[in-house]
């Protein structure tokens, strides 16, 4: 009976869920999309992903160990997630040194300057992606065309993305019906048979991962569903108003980075709102800005920009969209 007892305030048990498990849960959810990228783009997808993950982890480790002189926390898995997401957001033939620059910007500027995990206002992978897009516009927009498993890295055939073809064509006065002939069918888009960033192409695989994350309670449905519904409604109205100038909602949902952005990027815990109400407003904002950029902006695609813009509103959303407090109104039902 001489045990020394631990004394601490309640609760005396904790959920088996940990931050590490959540992060690796996201990694698992990204595997189907990674597999389809390898299927469509070949060895390039593997090189890009490995380079990005290794450099993100290395940058975080180096900054924590040698600059901040604190205990490195790379094993929490968040740098791995950022690495995979950054890789998913660049073409599969991007030169390795550019990927490393992207990793340095993502982790170094996007995350560590703000204080590391939990403190960054913007999604680190998107900070890196947008930096690369502006700094290396040629390399960042020469998208390999999917052509089955390839072993070459730089010799991939490149072409425009469906959104690029559509945007350029409409500007040149072609009708949507004619342009539809030049882009893959909706079914092909759904499976991922299109040009684009490495991990954004396969809607089906991304959705499978999203369902896994909702089932594992890593994310809730609020952000992805509100983004996708907003984009579908907004583009649907435009399409109904003038089907010769606007593509149908299905095309918009399945192309570009929308699925990747809605399911994996916008749902980043740190840079998204904390309440369900806030999440829905945030999702609607991302959806609206995406369609605005795609339809009237200079870029054919706007998911990355719209997520970063809405990231900036998160502190405000957290302040204005509070949960319903229990007992706020006196009810005598």
């Amino acid at each position: 009976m001489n045990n020394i007892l631990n004394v601490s305030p309640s609760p005396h048990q904790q959920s088996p869920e940990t931050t590490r498990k959540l992060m690796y849960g996201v990694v698992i959810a990204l595997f189907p999309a990674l597999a389809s990228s390898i299927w469509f783009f070949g060895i390039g997808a593997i090189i890009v992903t490995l380079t990005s993950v290794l450099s993100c982890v290395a940058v975080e480790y180096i900054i924590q160990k040698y600059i901040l002189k604190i205990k490195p926390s790379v094993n929490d898995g968040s740098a791995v997630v950022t690495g995979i997401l950054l890789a998913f957001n660049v073409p599969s033939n991007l030169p390795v040194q550019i990927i490393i620059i992207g990793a340095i910007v993502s982790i170094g500027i996007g995350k560590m300057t703000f204080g590391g995990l939990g403190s960054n206002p913007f999604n680190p992978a998107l900070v890196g992606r947008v930096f690369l897009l502006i700094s290396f516009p040629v390399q960042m927009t020469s998208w390999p065309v999917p052509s089955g498993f390839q072993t070459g890295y730089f010799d991939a055939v490149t072409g425009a993305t469906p959104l690029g073809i559509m945007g350029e064509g409409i500007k040149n006065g072609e009708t949507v019906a004619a342009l539809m002939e030049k882009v893959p069918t909706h079914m092909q888009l759904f499976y991922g048979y299109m040009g684009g960033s490495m991990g954004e192409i396969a809607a089906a695989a991304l959705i499978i991962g999203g369902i896994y994350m909702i089932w594992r309670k890593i994310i809730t449905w609020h952000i992805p569903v509100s983004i996708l519904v907003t984009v579908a409604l907004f583009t649907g109205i435009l399409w109904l108003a003038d089907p010769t100038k606007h593509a149908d909602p299905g095309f918009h949902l399945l192309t570009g980075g929308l699925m990747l952005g809605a399911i994996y990027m916008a749902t980043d815990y740190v840079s998204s709102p904390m309440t369900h109400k806030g999440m829905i407003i945030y999702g609607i904002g991302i959806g609206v800005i995406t369609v605005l950029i795609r339809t009237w902006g200079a870029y054919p695609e706007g998911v990355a920009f719209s997520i970063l813009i809405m990231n900036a509103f998160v502190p405000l959303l957290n302040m204005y969209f509070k949960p319903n407090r229990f007992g706020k109104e006196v009810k005598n039902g």
Partner: protein
Amino acid sequence: MFKTFPKGGIHPPENKLTAEKPIVVLPLPPQVTVPVSQHIGAPATPTVEKGAAVKAGQVIAQAKGFVSANIHSPVSGKVSKIDTLVDTTGYKQTAVVIDVEGDEWVETINRSEVLVKEITMTREQIIERCKQSGLVGLGGATFPTHIKMTVPAGKKCDMVIINGVECEPYLTSDHRLMLEKGAEVLTGAAIIMKALGVEKVVVGIEANKPDAISHLTELAKDFKGITIQPLKVKYPQGGEKQLIKACTGREVPSGGLPVDVGVVVQNVGTAFAVYEAVQKNKPLIERIVTVTGKDVKNPGNFRVRIGTPVTALIEAAGGMPEDTGKVVNGGPMMGKALAMTEVPVTKGTSGILLFPAAVSRRAEVLPCIRCGKCTSACAMGLEPWLISVLSEKSMWENAEKEKITDCMECGACAYTCPSKRPLLDYIRLGKSTVIRMARERITK
């Protein structure tokens, strides 16, 4: 048909290891230690001297002030000393130590187990009897029962809810009581109903106790005005406000009491104690305690006299396992860790829970990743991440604005946090500071 409260809540593993274990009467210990404060409110004043001979059921400390409760001798024997001793809270306080001799009870107590269903007392007599018998809420809060039976002027009560939820993992004392003393519990509920002058009683029981639900539903057919309400399993459904919301849809206003929406909530253990006090003239000198833990040899439910050392209970359950690292008085979510086991069982002891050393320490704390799981888990609609940071940074006014005082300290936020942040520790600090500041504002 299964109801629940709508906002927040979590599903910790239930671990009801002792649900099938009938209540066992614990033999009398050689000595009992009876603290004079086993309730919320002013400590009672000892009325016996050292060396005095006492009988079981005799008053040994008199209630002092409005919110207080009488303390009775749980055993017969001789008062060996009146001293300041450590109790389950870890603090020292006055206690009456009695050496047990035989088991002689005060003559007016009816010790037969025969059910007495007919209620002959008037409202006033019932309330007075509960007061004399030292009844307090046995769910854990230990608020004097007779005060809860008196509806404050200007308020109206139209129903009673009996709390048979027992949402804390591990604990089964209320469950066993409903199974083994169901008719007594319902009679107690009928007595409370009469004391409050209402016509309606709802007994809320969670779906993980189907045997108790069917047993009481069958028994309730013989009682007028009593219905059994099955509830979905969700923690913290045993919280008064959540239980009222689940059973009636009424929402107790922030800062208000259940009676503000016309409800009084009593625990099943309290209903049983009310039955014993009113029908058998038996004061509150024993209670049911679950002794449990995954490594405990014979976990069980024990009927034990107040003042019995916790060590005796642990011995009865097969002794303390070799690697025990933490002993909790109560359940794993809201119970209090004991610094030592040489403390007495009090009116508020609902369980003794033994954790092995491996799980008795908290996990490593990581930065908040702003996942919002704590906000989703909070049954009061608060933002635990926010109010804990505000407390950490001593921003008390902001914490008050964010309704920190609505927190009932159920621990759902700290349970659910993937980064294992000590959310509730900071919230408790903030809550007590904000309450103190609010009091100071009033007195100024």
